[in-house]
Each structure stands twice: as C-alpha cells, then as structure tokens.
C-alpha cells in the first residue's frame, strides 16, 4: 500500500498546526496570530486500515494568488508548480468555523484546481459560544465536498476526520465550475450557502472588541504594553532567584565531588574547569529563560501579541517599516533565526530585507545569560520604586535599547539603501482566547530541551576546545606570568588586545569573545573556563562564583561596555547562515556582519570615551 499524501491548507490562524499536532503527535509551534507557520512541515500517521499517511502542514494563504513568500510556498504545493515537490493526493481545507463568511470563498476557489478536497470546520467550540449554529450535513451537500467539525486544540473531531480520509472517494472526477473564477460570483455563492447552512449571528459587540477599546487605545494601550513588558523583566529576575541558586549549588557540589574524587591533573582540569564550570555557567540561566518564555507564550496564546503589533505599527510606520515586521521582530526576542524566517509574511522585498537586517538587534534569549551574569555582578539590586528593582530595570533598559537601535537602523536603511513607500498594515486581529495549558507546557518543555541541547552540544564542544587552547602549550617553569597567558588562547587574546583595549576589554575578554562568535551564550561558559583555569592552582577548596571573579577583575565601565557591545554584536553564525538562505546571496549577511560589528565597536568605544571624560574610568 503506497503512502497517502494529505496536505492541510486554509487561511492563516485557522488552526492548521493545532490540528496537525493533534493528528501526528508533533510539537510544532502554535500561537494565536497569523503567520506562525512559514514553511511546510511533514508528519506521519496511520489510518485504522493500516494505510500510512504523510500529513503536510502548509503555511496559511488567503487565496491562490500569493502575496508573500510564505503564501508562495503554500500555492506552489497547491498548484503543483515545483516539479520536485510530490503532489498531495488530498487537500484538507481547514476553516475557522466562526469566520465562514470570509473563508468559504477560498474553498470555492480551490475547487478550480481539480484536486480532491475535504473540508474541516475547526474551532466548533467557539461557534457554540458565539451563539449560532452550522448545519454541517447541509454544508456538505451545498459544497459537494465531505465536511467534518473539529476542535483542533482538544483533539475533538480528529477520529471523524481520519474516518473521512479513509473512506474518501479518490475515483471521483473533479470538475471546475466556470462561474467560480470571478470572485464576485464566489462571494454571492458563499452568501447563498450560508443563508442555508448557518443560523443568524448575534449582533452584539464581541468580547474581544470591547477589550480592544482599551488595549488598542493609542495612550492606554501603549501604557498597558509598557507595563506588561516591565512586569515580565522584573519577574525574570525575581522568580528565578531560588531555582538559579539550586542549580548553582548542584554545580558547585558536582565540581567539588569530582575534584576530591579525581587526582589533580589535566583530565581533572578538563572535567572541572572546562566541562562542569563552562557548561554549568550557562545552564544556571535556564530558569530565567523559561520565565521569559512563559510570558511570551502566554501573550502569544491569548492573542495579545497581534494587538502589540497593531500598537507598534505607528512607531514602525514612522521609520518606514511595514507593520507586519513586528511579528518577525517579536520572534527574534526568542532567536533571530525563526524571526528572519518569519519575514516571509512580508510581501515587499525591500521591507523584508530591512526587517531581516534589524532582526539580530532584538534581544534574543542567547544574550540573556550574558546580560544576567553582568547585571548580577555589577548592578546592585536596590529597590527603585515599589516592587521595581534596579536589576530588572537595567534588563528592561537593555531590551529597550535593542528595540530603539533596531528602529533607528531601520529608519536609516529605509531612507537610503532600501527606500520605498510604506504599504498600509492589514493585520488580522484574532479573538482573545484562554491559553491552552498543555500547549504552554509543551512550549516551555521545547524551549528547555533546545537550551539544554545547545548546552550539551555546541557549548560543551566549544568549552572543551577552549580548555585545550587555554591549557596548551604548557608554561615552562622559568617563564614569568600565568599559564593561561602562555597558552594559544592567551596569545590570541593578547594579539587582539590592542584592538579591543579602547573598548575597555582586556585579553581575557578577548579570549571569550572569539568563541562567542559561534553563539552568544558561549561567552559566559568561555569566561567561566578562562577564569577557572587561571585560578586552578589556587586553593581548590574555595569555591568562587564567576560573578565574584568578574567583580574583582573588571571595572563597572568594562562591564557596561561589554553589555553595550552585546546589544549590537553579530555573535551568531547561524543567524548569518539563515540570512544567506533567505536572501539567496552572501552580500546581505556580509553587510549585516560589517554594519553590526561597526555599530558594536562604535557604541562601546564612545561609551568608554564618555566614561573616561566624566571620570568614571
């Protein structure tokens, strides 16, 4: 029995990925705003008769005339344009059952492509709550297509859908209806069908619209958004205190146990100073990352993120950016890679390029360990106003500085190399929904898994290599200075010291900056390894935390200069690689690398100059 290929298609934010996850057991990202899925995803499932099915989740599209690269991906599959793409045997059209006035027209348009179709009415629970009813049997008759009701997020209707797929008549002949080529005729037909299959909707103002009167208000909405962000960053520091301490204690005990159990020597140094100290220094930030993502996932699931995009459109429009750029930029707070991929929802090529170029300026989660380490070491946790404390405020300031610099850079690009008219924002505002706790837990689990996987692969590997470069060649007895100064890494750090000294950095920061180009958080593990090796011949019983070591070795100006460097520095190879893939050229990633490095150097240099002039340094 050959594999059956089934593709899910429909408008953006109609619940295709929720249904895909329910059917295949996958954990693809779902959120309550349009444009989350930007490329096709595949998963496997079996029907009760043993038939194997390859399920394809396509990005959302409003019609068969693509307006943006993500819609292009969906339309290429639907129309069979790419000859290396295997054509699906069946298209499952997923519709938001509360919005049939808009989405039924898409079903009629799809009937023109002469392919087997099956319709799923998703979010049937919201239909009931909205106080109207849909007669699925009548709709099936009027459309001439099989129709199933479902609630994707709760796995309801999935069995009925699988049954429909199993009993689907693939022998049936699919003929296009000539009159459906005209959109006006399609809309008339939708009206006719709905008058027969759907009871009248209540005319009262929906809950979401009532709430939006306040949350989308130019003044109150902006105040609310600022408050939300402030609360998030305060929570990142306060809620994480206890779990961070537990992880620190665990790493300390592990490190001391290995030191006692193993005799002193190179292997002990590799395990304790390289692996445990290096990886441990990054892993302690797991609670902070999870708290940040808890809020991001919560806001995404409720539908507030789309409102934030709407509020930000005024600011974005002021610098010539498309309002749709907000969602990719928001994704970049997690990581610039999905953020850059999410720019596929932007139709205009110049707007898309401008958004790709500024995405690395948004503060990604890899910066969080660096920020948290330096803030905890150098900024006192004094109360500022009520429950707001200085550390949380500085963290908020760093995130804010990232946004402001992104906006400023976008303004310059849109006025110079990427100039063009700003198109109006057309953004679908989803209804507010209660977040699904299961999705929230899965989202957090995925984030923790990714972070720990990075710690166990990239960070561990680079830490082991850094340990080698920091320990070899061994310093002969008669040579003055520390062993790390004599090592390859020490020599490399010393050789770049003249270049970074104007920024307030010494050769040890230089050593950590180099592997930090592979991934930002490697900087923390590198610093931990460098300082652990430097002090390895001191009293091993005295456990000194990395933040205390930095406090005694660096000035406040050095720490602040490094924080400023990190707002801009393009220290992530993967971001450059994905930029190459998305722009299909090396020109833009090279430009991105040069302009971000230039900005980082200039900003840190100016800060150190000002600090020296004011007598801080």
């Amino acid at each position, binding site marked *: 029995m050959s594999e059956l290929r089934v593709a899910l298609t429909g408008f953006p934010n109609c619940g295709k990925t929720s249904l895909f996850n329910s059917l295949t057991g996958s954990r693809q990202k779902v959120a309550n705003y349009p444009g989350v899925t930007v490329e096709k995803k595949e998963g496997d499932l079996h029907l009760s008769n043993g038939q194997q099915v390859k399920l394809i989740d396509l990005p959302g599209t409003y019609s068969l005339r693509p307006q943006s690269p993500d819609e292009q991906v969906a339309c290429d599959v639907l129309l069979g344009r790419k000859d*290396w793409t*295997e054509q699906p045997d069946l298209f499952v059209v997923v519709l938001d059952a509360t919005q049939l006035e808009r989405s039924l027209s898409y079903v009629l348009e799809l009937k023109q492509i002469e392919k087997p179709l099956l319709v799923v009415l998703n979010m049937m629970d919201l239909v009931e709550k909205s106080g109207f009813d849909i007669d699925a049997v009548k709709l099936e008759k009027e459309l001439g297509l099989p129709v199933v009701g479902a609630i994707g997020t709760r796995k309801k209707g999935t069995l009925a859908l699988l049954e429909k797929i199993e009993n689907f008549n693939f022998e049936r002949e699919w003929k296009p209806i000539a009159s459906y080529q005209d959109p006006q005729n399609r809309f008339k037909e939708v009206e006719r069908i709905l008058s027969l299959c759907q009871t009248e909707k209540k005319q009262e103002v929906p809950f979401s619209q009532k709430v939006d009167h306040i949350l989308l208000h130019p003044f109150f909405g902006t105040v609310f958004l600022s408050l939300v962000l402030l609360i998030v960053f305060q929570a990142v520091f306060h809620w994480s205190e206890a779990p961070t301490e537990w992880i620190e204690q665990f790493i300390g005990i592990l490190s001391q146990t290995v030191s006692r159990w*193993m*005799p002193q*020597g*190179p*292997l*002990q*140094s*590799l395990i304790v100073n390289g692996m445990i100290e290096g990886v441990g220094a990054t892993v302690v930030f797991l609670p902070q990352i999870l708290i940040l993502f808890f809020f991001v996932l919560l806001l995404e699931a409720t539908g507030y993120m789309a409102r934030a995009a709407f509020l930000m459109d005024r600011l974005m429009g002021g610098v010539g950016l498309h309002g749709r750029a907000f969602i990719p930029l928001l994704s970049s707070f997690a990581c610039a890679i999905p953020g850059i991929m999410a720019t596929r929802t932007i139709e205009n090529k110049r707007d898309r390029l401008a958004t790709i170029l500024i995405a690395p300026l948004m503060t990604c989660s890899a910066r969080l360990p660096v920020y948290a380490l330096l803030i905890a070491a150098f900024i006192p946790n004094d109360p500022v106003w009520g429950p707001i404390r200085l550390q949380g405020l500085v963290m908020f300031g760093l995130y804010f500085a990232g946004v402001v610099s992104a906006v400023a850079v976008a303004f310059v690009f849109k006025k110079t190399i990427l100039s063009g008219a700003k198109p109006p924002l057309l953004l679908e505002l989803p209804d507010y929904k209660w977040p699904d706790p299961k999705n929230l837990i899965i989202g957090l689990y995925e984030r923790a898994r990714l972070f720990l996987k990075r710690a166990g692969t990239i960070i*561990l*590997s680079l830490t*082991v*290599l850094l*340990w*080698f470069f920091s320990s070899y060649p061994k310093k002969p007895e008669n040579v003055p200075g520390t062993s790390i100064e004599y090592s390859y890494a020490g020599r490399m750090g010393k050789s770049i010291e003249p270049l970074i000294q104007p920024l307030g950095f010494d050769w040890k920061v230089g050593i950590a900056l180099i592997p930090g180009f592979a991934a930002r958080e490697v900087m923390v593990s590198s610093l931990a390894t460098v300082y652990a090796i430097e002090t390895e011949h001191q009293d091993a019983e005295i456990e000194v935390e990395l933040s205390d070591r930095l406090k005694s070795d660096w000035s406040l100006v050095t720490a602040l200069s490094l924080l400023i460097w990190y707002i801009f520095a393009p220290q992530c190879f993967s971001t450059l*690689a994905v930029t190459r893939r998305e722009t299909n050229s090396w020109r833009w990633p090279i430009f991105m690398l040069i302009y971000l490095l230039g900005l980082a150097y200039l900003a840190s240099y100016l800060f150190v100059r000002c600090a020296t002039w004011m007598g801080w340094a």
Partner: protein
Amino acid sequence: MSDQLQEWIALGIVALVFLKILCSFFKKEIAKPLSQFLLKKGKVKWAMKVHPFSKK
C-alpha cells in the same frame, strides 16, 4: 591515575570533540547545500551520494 595517562585521555576527548565539530560542519555547510543543489538539478543519484539522507 598518572599525570601522563590523564593527559592522554584529556587530549583524546579534545580530539573526538574536534572531529565531531568537523563532521557536523561538513554535513551542514557542505553536504546539505550541495545535495539540495543537485536535487534541484534533478541529479538525484549524485545528491544521494553526497548526502545519503536527502530524499527526492
């Protein structure tokens, strides 16, 4: 455990890690893009040779 034995084991671990990084670099940055290019050109057998996991 003698100092020399410790050193050999430590350097062995470093060598293994270095090899692993080289392999993943080859897979990600050379084999995958090359096989995708060959797939687009329709030279499936060549693509399978370069990157055995690439599917048509």
